[in-house]
């Protein structure tokens, strides 16, 4: 790699020191503070750190952290990979990730949806992976049609190779100004944000996975890759049994996206797939923690589409603990609870906790889902018989539970 200019070297080194201090003093994993310090000293640091590397950017409403991890695992076949594994997905986190792996010729960066245009412009990444867009914490995240429009503008006129989920109409629209797109039929469970054509506003007609606008020519592109239940189908029509350790349809979709990205980097499926199978949990997601004979599997779900995915993974034969907060990172508004259909939980023992448990309690009451209200996660766990239990929590509720178990990974 070419040597960084002196100022950038210094900025990068001081950022790493700040990150180390942050970790040593127990304030966090250091990935944000380190990047902030670096950017303060050298505002152009991200561009400089990105230069001469082959980068993939990963963005979506759901599955960013997991897919970033899967792609990273696959690209390790080629050599060292810099990545923001802990979900610090804004420029400070990207600076930190690239600073910590200065010699890595490859980089896989999870990027917040809003920051994608800025990060793409700054880094000039060669590959962008786009999975899904749905309503999410709108008190701070903004409107998704506008987001997709910004993606279009950012991708237009660049040589970027986009890997995009063509089962999501809004993602398809957001990606379709790119010079080169590989379309993946990655599935779309949550459809409530795509009944209307992003191009003209007309109604979208749907038949199975296919969709087309009734009023204009916008329609689903022909996919090169597809997920078919437990199988990935590659552009040559070859079928690959996925056999992932990560559970659920959403992760099988994430894996096919990762295989398509890996192939864009020159890693064939037969080398990438065994790497994906090694991933068991991602920053605490899907991990199982144990206390007094209770084995709790932790599922993160931050928005309606994420809850649908979590319901797909949760075992209908087990009790389930639900925990909801509304701190800044969660969105301070709990309205989204009303977009989720909880009736699937009828018949299971359901336990409700978290800082906004009364919001969730009323929601379940209106859905005629019986439940037990608990003051804390610990109380809810202690009420379980020994054995397995599923846990679904939104962002800060999930982090609180992880902390209880020593930031379980």
């Amino acid at each position: 790699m070419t040597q960084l200019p002196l100022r950038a070297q210094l900025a990068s080194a001081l950022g790493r020191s700040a990150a180390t201090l942050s970790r040593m003093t127990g304030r966090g994993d250091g990935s944000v503070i380190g990047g902030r310090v670096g950017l303060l000293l050298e505002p152009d640091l991200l561009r400089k750190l990105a230069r001469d590397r082959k980068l993939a950017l990963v963005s979506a409403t759901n599955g960013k952290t997991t897919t970033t991890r899967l792609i990273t695992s696959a690209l390790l076949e080629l050599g060292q990979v810099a990545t923001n594994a802990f979900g610090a997905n804004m420029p400070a986190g990207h600076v930190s990730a690239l600073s910590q792996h200065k010699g890595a010729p490859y980089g896989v960066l999870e990027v917040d949806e809003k920051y994608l245009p800025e990060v793409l412009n700054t880094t000039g990444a060669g590959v962008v992976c786009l999975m899904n867009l749905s309503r999410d914490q709108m008190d701070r995240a903004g409107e998704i049609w506008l987001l997709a429009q910004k993606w279009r503008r950012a991708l237009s006129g660049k040589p970027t190779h986009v890997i995009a989920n063509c089962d999501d109409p809004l993602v398809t629209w957001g990606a379709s100004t790119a010079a080169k797109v590989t379309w993946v039929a990655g599935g779309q469970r949550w459809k409530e944000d795509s009944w209307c054509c992003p191009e003209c506003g007309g109604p979208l007609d749907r038949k199975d996975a296919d969709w087309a606008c009734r009023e204009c020519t916008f329609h689903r592109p022909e996919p090169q890759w597809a997920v078919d239940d437990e199988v990935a189908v590659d552009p040559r029509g070859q079928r690959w049994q996925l056999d992932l350790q990560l559970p659920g349809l959403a992760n099988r979709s994430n894996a096919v996206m990762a295989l398509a990205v890996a192939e864009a980097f020159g890693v064939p499926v037969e080398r990438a797939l065994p790497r994906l199978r090694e991933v068991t949990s991602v920053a605490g997601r899907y991990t199982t923690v144990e206390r007094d004979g209770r084995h709790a599997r932790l599922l993160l779900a931050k928005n309606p589409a994420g809850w649908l995915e979590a319901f797909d993974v949760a075992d209908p034969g087990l009790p389930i603990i639900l925990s909801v907060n509304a701190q800044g990172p969660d969105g301070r508004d709990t309205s989204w609870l009303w977009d989720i259909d909880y009736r699937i939980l009828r018949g299971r023992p359901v336990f409700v906790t978290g800082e906004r448990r009364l919001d969730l309690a009323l929601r379940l009451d209106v859905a005629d889902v019986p439940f037990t209200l608990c003051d804390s996660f610990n109380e809810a766990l202690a009420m379980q018989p020994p054995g397995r239990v599923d846990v679904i929590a939104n962002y800060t509720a999930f982090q609180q539970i992880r902390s209880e178990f020593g930031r379980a990974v």
Partner: protein
Amino acid sequence: MPSDSALRIVWIYPDLLSTYGDQGNVLVLEQRAQRRGIETETIHVRSADPVPETGDVYLIGGGEDRPQILAAERLRRDGGLHRAVAGGAALLAVCAGYQIMGSRFGGEEGQPVDGIGLLDIASSRGPARAVGELVAEVDAALGLPTLTGFENHMGVTHLGPGVRALSKTSVGVGNGDGFEGCYAGHVVGTYLHGPALARNPALADLLLSWRVGELAPLDDSRYEALRQERLAKVLQS
């Protein structure tokens, strides 16, 4: 099959305007009617379909700028909602749906866009986004307890002489002039987005009572627990 006498709840354009939990208002109305033994039938009207005129309670929710403009165009062209309201149906219009009911509102770039003229109000784009909890005291003529909820909008709404303010804000922005929402006849507009009725079951009952008359009391402890927790938290900060 619901009988002809079932209470008909009509949810207008969930494909365009249901950005954040707007379904909650539908579910709360259904639950509060059914728990009183009132049969309900709920109709989801997609934007490509005509709005039925024979509904009892109509709901329209919040959404992004572009769908809001599309919804206004289609409602004006369709005319079904106008006929239903003229016939005495109840209507709760939320956030973007509230703005649509007036003579005009602010479009994507702040440009004035024609509304559908069901309420004597005019909206425009305000200087800053209003995001957060809202608390307001309801117009005494309606006899409702304190209004509580969450707002997330950039609109400023001016009330004309043909409507009355729904409430006077003590926390939050609402219409932008110290008041929140408005009402006229059986039409209520509010910036409390998403499931406003989950936080204000008395408002849900008001809409129901306009169609079915006096209502039997319900066990509201779940609603009341949430209301008290929210009001205490918001008023204390």
